[in-house]
């Protein structure tokens, strides 16, 4: 079989797998960014030592754990606290001063994965004295990832993590926020218990509250343009006027339906404010 014919067959098998997952499990991956999806599926196939997407399909349709494994393989979240120090620094400098003037603040972290950025945000809000008036909601489509996030257990932060925390403007010591257990860090209950982790699938579930701050960073990279724009419509509906939308460093609102409703905070790493 020629390489082109093999590629066509692989594409067909991928379509059938996605169709099966959508119809049987209700997870619609068909509007995900195609090149990224193919690469992740191939990697997952190698790790599972399977021959083809058809073999993966057979396993995933009959085994909910295999589905969780697949969803996990398709996700990607930062693997350490304060992974993007520049973002948290900008958040402290530009968003926190405004939050101080509000009596209560609802924050939604959409696509929290295993929770590293969620906990980093919680630490930041605590350091800034805002934790008492904030309600932090964190959601992900995958129950498996959420279960990991809820434990509040992370790989023990090292020197790099401490340095990034300091770069983000952190004043105290990162180790004040966890207790060590071997190579693991158990985050303090005051942080863990103050976060509402909830299963929410951005591709199909509606808006569930009105928020003053929404973090959705690099989560929408895995969607294609049409789905990306649909999700942005949902984020817009969920954001209060004058609320903040925090995107990834290379994500843009330019082609989304509500681009005109936002202003980018000058000099920030893609933090936007809803103005209408």
């Amino acid at each position: 079989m020629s390489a082109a014919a093999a590629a066509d067959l692989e594409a067909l098998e991928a379509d059938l797998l996605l169709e099966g997952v959508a119809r049987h499990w209700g997870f619609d991956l068909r509007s995900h960014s195609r090149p990224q999806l193919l690469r992740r599926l191939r990697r997952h196939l190698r790790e599972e030592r399977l021959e083809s997407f058809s073999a993966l399909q057979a396993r995933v349709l009959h085994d909910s754990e295999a589905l969780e494994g697949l969803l996990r393989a398709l996700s990607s979240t930062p693997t350490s606290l304060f992974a993007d120090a520049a973002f948290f620094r900008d958040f402290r400098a530009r968003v926190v001063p405004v939050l101080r003037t509000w009596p209560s603040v609802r924050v939604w972290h959409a696509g929290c994965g295993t929770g590293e950025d969620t906990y980093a945000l919680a630490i930041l809000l605590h350091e800034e004295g805002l934790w008492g008036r904030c309600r932090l909601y964190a959601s992900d489509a995958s129950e498996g990832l959420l279960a990991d996030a809820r434990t509040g257990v992370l790989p023990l932060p090292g020197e790099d993590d401490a340095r990034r925390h300091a770069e983000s403007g952190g004043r105290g010591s990162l180790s004040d926020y966890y207790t060590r257990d071997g190579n693991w860090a158990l985050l303090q209950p005051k942080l863990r218990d103050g976060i509402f982790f909830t299963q929410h699938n951005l591709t199909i579930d509606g808006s569930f509250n009105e928020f003053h701050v929404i973090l959705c960073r690099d989560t929408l990279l895995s969607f294609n343009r049409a789905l990306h724009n649909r999700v942005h419509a949902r984020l817009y509906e969920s954001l209060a006027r004058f609320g903040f939308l925090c995107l990834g460093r290379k994500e843009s609102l330019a082609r989304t339906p509500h681009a005109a409703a936002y202003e980018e905070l000058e000099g920030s790493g893609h933090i936007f404010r809803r103005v209408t």
Partner: protein
Amino acid sequence: MSVGLLVVGAPRSAGADVETLLSMLPAHLPAPVVVVLHRGPHDLLAAPLGRRCALPVVEPDDKDDLVPGRVYLAPWGYHLLVDRGCVALSVEPPEHGCRPAIDALFESAADSYGAAAAGLLFTGHDDGQEGLGLLKARGGRVAVVKGGSESGEGQEGEVERLSLAEVGGWLTRLAYAARGRVQP
């Protein structure tokens, strides 16, 4: 088959060679050029690489259009994938210790452009060799560029091998083939 996309991969050591390559691009290249140059978080590359290039050099945002006659440079910290006329950035884990990685770009080019993709790989790193093989298997036109003073005679394995001086001619033939598509 005519060319709809040119992908270029280079290790950090080939930065100066990439600048030279970009200066050789025809001003009316009828295809987008996508470049992965291995980089660190604080390297500012778009401006220096664009200095001698006739085409605009940009670091795209996610889901930007791929427009013919522009050079797209992979930003630090993301893989740059191509998705039929549009940029798709990705935060998948680093490959060969690199993000952006050349293999990631080349694999996506093979998937979404197939034989319409052309690829150039500067030697000096493992990253990119597997992707170049994929591109070639799908019928894309590929070549390996030896850096600096090394001579570029002949073939490396099955792949055409060029010296930096020979790349100009290779690009001209590519642009000619690509122009052929739009002329009746």
